[in-house]
């Protein structure tokens, strides 16, 4: 079965601007991953095609790309998940500077993640054993802790597109992960970072992040919990 990939190419050493190139390739069946098809192009047709990837099953977060206009992971999207009767459009994640082909500059994304103090703060004396936490409280963190930092959410967010200073959904999700951890004592130190016009309040509940998240995390709900916490703090 032949399919056509229409891939956005850009090599700053040669190209003035990005362009599209089509590759008609043999796919085998419709259960192959889009990542497998990118490998077919790279390994059999054109070694210059450049993309990031590592685990190939949706846990490392390296291969966030845009497939037919949707932010997805190349390794957890199968051919049968897209309309392959027409050329499949493959582009880098939007709104980030392109380094080459599908590789984007993630440094701003990581900087914003680091800004929300993405670690447990607890300066109380350590118990000899583990801190106790109910399974119910632990499970409140699990959905947010699934995040793989692929940037599919943040780069799908219109608020992020219009406000380059907005920390974005991924960083806010991480802020939730620690703010709602019963073991965390950062309190106002972390909340102050996100209680700003470019922080939590820039989220306009558009839900693009939820649709984009390959780990099916309800990011908007988590941000709403942060908003609630901030409003409570105000009162």
């Amino acid at each position, binding site marked *: 079965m032949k399919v056509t990939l229409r891939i956005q190419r850009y090599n700053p050493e040669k190209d003035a601007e990005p362009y599209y190139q089509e590759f008609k390739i043999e796919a085998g069946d419709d259960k192959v991953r889009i990542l497998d098809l990118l490998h077919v192009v790279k390994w059999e047709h054109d070694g210059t095609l450049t993309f990031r990837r590592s685990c190939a099953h949706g846990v490392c977060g390296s291969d966030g790309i845009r497939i037919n206009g949707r932010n997805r992971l190349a390794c*957890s999207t199968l051919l049968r998940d897209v309309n392959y009767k027409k050329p499949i459009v493959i582009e880098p994640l939007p709104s980030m500077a392109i380094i080459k082909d599908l590789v984007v500059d993630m440094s701003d994304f990581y900087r914003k993640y680091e800004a929300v103090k993405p670690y447990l703060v607890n300066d109380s004396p*350590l118990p000899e054993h583990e801190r106790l936490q109910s399974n119910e409280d632990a499970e409140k963190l699990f959905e947010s*802790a699934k995040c793989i930092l692929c940037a599919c959410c943040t780069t799908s967010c219109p608020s992020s597109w219009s406000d380059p200073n907005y920390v974005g959904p991924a960083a806010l999700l991480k802020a939730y992960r620690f703010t709602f951890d019963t073991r965390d004592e950062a309190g106002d130190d972390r909340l102050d970072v996100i209680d700003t016009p470019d922080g939590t309040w820039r989220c306009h509940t558009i839900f693009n992040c939820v649709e984009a998240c390959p780990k099916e995390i309800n990011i908007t709900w988590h941000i709403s919990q942060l908003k609630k916490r901030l409003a409570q703090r105000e009162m």
Partner: protein
Amino acid sequence: MVKHQYDAIIVGAGGAGLRAALEIPEGFSCAVLSKVFPTRSHTGAAQGGIGAALGNEEEDSWEWHMFDTVKGSDYLGDQDAIEIMTKDAIRAIIELEHMGMPFSRTPEGKIAQRKFGGHTKPENPSDPDSKRIAVKRSCYSADRTGHVMLHTLYENCIKQKVHFYSEFFVTDLIMSGNVCAGVVAIEIATSEVHVFHAKAVMLATGGYGRIYRITSNAHVGTGDGFAHVYNNGLPLQDMEFVQFHPTGLWKLGILISEAARGEGGILLNSKGERFMERYAPTVKDLAPRDMVSRAILTEIREGRGIKGSDGTYYVNLDLTHLPKEVIDDKLPEITGFARTYLGVEPTKEPIPIQPTAHYAMGGIPTTPDAEVTKDKKKTVIPGLYAAGEAACVSVHGGNRLGTNSLLDLIVFGRRGGKAIAKFIAGAEFAPLPGDAADKTISKIDRVQNSTGSEKPGSLRTEMQEKMMEKVGIFRNEKDLTEMTSEIKNLRDRYQKIAIDDKGKIFNTDMMEAIELGNLIDTAEAITHSALARQESRGAHSREDYPNRDDKKWLKHTLIYKTDGEPKLDYKPVSITRFQPKERKY
């Protein structure tokens, strides 16, 4: 060329590298180099848990954990190191919790634990010789234990302001006489060569799964650290011991955690028989991985496999009898994989699985303080350390038990970090050789300017197919001998590879070509070590030598690269508490 100087350089940002970095005190300079952004490291793919005798769910003891690990290793693991690991496990898990790792919890709010392959306790705790039954020893966070552990360690590195060079691909060690003086790396974004002069270097570079066609390993698992050591005339240890995880998704090799069986899943053949009852009557489906993988292959060879649409065979992993909340709460990720990749609904139908290349028991020989050793007398190379899957301490011997790899990372990553901290406080910088970067520069030049006809992609695929066929679960002299000539052939053809991408910016074409060289070196070490070991022990199963032979082979293999055939040597196993016995479950 850019030059840097650091007291300590850590190569690799998975569990071992990150844990080590946290031990370098303020006042010393340290940088972590990783070819991917740290949270992309393969530690994140670990699923089912991390082993420690916390005794949160039922009575347990580190001595039982130690015995299981020794027995699981088929008595090839060094018992002094295993004792250190299983004792320290309890502290290490508590420490992860204190760092903020989110664990599943017991009703009392303690860290939850579950059963895992090969982890047992005496049925009658007061009689250590009584029949052994499965014990809940695996500390877990649903089935994303590695993912949350990796993130927790990285988060702590951010908190501690550890310096990272992300997307820096290390290509060589710098040896200054008998001392390690740093590493050479390519900055992937620019192809610029960087020389990192250091007092101490730790290789925490992970495994080599990509030698095989069917593997659970990430594409980045290309044996880089093994190749750096091997190419500098230093030995690799016990490379013949390759773990095939019994339950990879059919055709894809994606890992389906042993936790699936720990929670009650069972393996079925084409007749619907629970065949593990025949191979391991006491622990059945929770036998160690080497035994379960052999059992699956034996079922298929004897005609009780299930034929797939493409003519290849699999067996079934059945979870349909498990309560839905167990599947949804404790195994959400792996059941998601079955749905996404095979279109199978695990609550209603069994999951087709096959063994998948998973883990390197062998590696760079080290002391229990992660110091790399260079001979059978365990002579330490000053300034060079290794930890994690890249290292061979040896705590896993011939076969690793599930949950012991994450444990290995944090126990020996920490010990290595502490040893480095002590070393750099007293050591001077070894002189930096003027030609430190020459090998890397000529490697880049050769790969970039070659006009040969070999494509790295097809050469790699050929190697993966052949390693699968000839150096897989069952081995014999004929196949192994054939593979040694195949490797010579691959090496010759590797000299003629040519790539398409001649540019400098983010040249992954060049990077993959260099990685392929590392894979071939590692495949050579595995094949020659396997050919020499004329016995069956742990994961090394020789059809022509089906029994374990303690008289001749209760010893570690060391293999050295030479200009011709690799050179082999052997060193004794540390046996302290448990004398070798027949291994039955």
